[in-house]
């Protein structure tokens, strides 16, 4: 059974950089109802991320928080950029792969000198690639 995933990227100053949802085909209609809800869960988890990052040796913090049926998994980079996934089914392997691939994409974007660091990511190519990666690692 494939679950729903909400994937924001939060910048150095806890500012939103990017967000995308991966929903299985039957749940697409309810996207807009839970958007604010997902944002507030992710935001609430940021405090736990900062606490946990010092306890973990690598960037992948696995699941840091749980709210009702939602799990919050995080990859926190050394410069405080957080890749967060809210998911209602445990899919650690897929999420870990997604984080690695999106992190690689993010590094390439960060090397573009026209991209202001930690600013919102407006690039459509980035969006398309993340959508593809989400479908590949989470929804298949």
């Amino acid at each position, binding site marked *: 059974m494939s679950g729903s995933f909400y994937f924001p990227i939060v910048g150095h100053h806890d500012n939103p950089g990017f967000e995308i949802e991966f929903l299985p085909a039957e749940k697409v209609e309810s996207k807009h109802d839970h958007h604010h809800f997902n944002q507030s869960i992710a935001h609430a988890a940021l405090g736990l991320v900062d606490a946990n990052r010092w306890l973990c040796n690598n960037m992948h913090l696995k699941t840091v928080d749980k709210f009702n049926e939602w799990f919050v998994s995080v990859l926190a980079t050394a410069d405080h950029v957080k890749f967060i996934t809210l998911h209602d089914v445990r899919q650690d392997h897929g999420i870990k792969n997604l984080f690695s691939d999106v992190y690689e994409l993010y590094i*390439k*974007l960060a*090397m*573009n*000198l*026209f991209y202001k660091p930690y600013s919102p990511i*407006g*690039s459509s*190519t*980035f969006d398309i690639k993340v959508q593809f990666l989400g479908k590949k690692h989470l929804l298949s």
Partner: protein
Amino acid sequence: MSRPGNRRPECHKINRDLFVLTYGALVAQLCKDYEKDEDVNNYLDKMGYGIGIRLVEDFLARSCVKKCHSYSEIADLIAQVAFKMYLGITPSVTRNESSRNEFSLILDKNPLVEFVEELPAGRSSLCYCNLLCGVIRGALEMIHLTADVTFLQDRLKGDKVTEIGITFLKKLEEKKCRRKK
């Protein structure tokens, strides 16, 4: 005091990422300084010109090329020796059939744009690598050839390939005639 014939000129190498990022920082700063794309393009061309008039000395010393007798030999030399020496790529040369002095360099890979996926918003007519046009123009001018060098196609603007057009403006034959007199 002349240079011994068998000494190989030293080839200094630097980290490729550092070079690409330095160039990107240059273009990004010019974009902040100038609002109009034409101004940025002109400035890149001028900077390239300043590099080209100096670089040609280094190129001629290191490559030990023989005298060229036609524009087509010069275009081949720029693509196969100069680009290879300084950027590590070998663009292919095509010639405009209708005109004897118009050539194009088609760049398959352009290391300078490695981290740039697309031009930033509001900068759609920016020629990101216009420095290269200035370099070629300056280098040719130092060997007494004037040329018009521009980007005809650019992958960053959505075209399929990146193409630099070189149009030689003075004829070599005229100069030869003058010398014979």
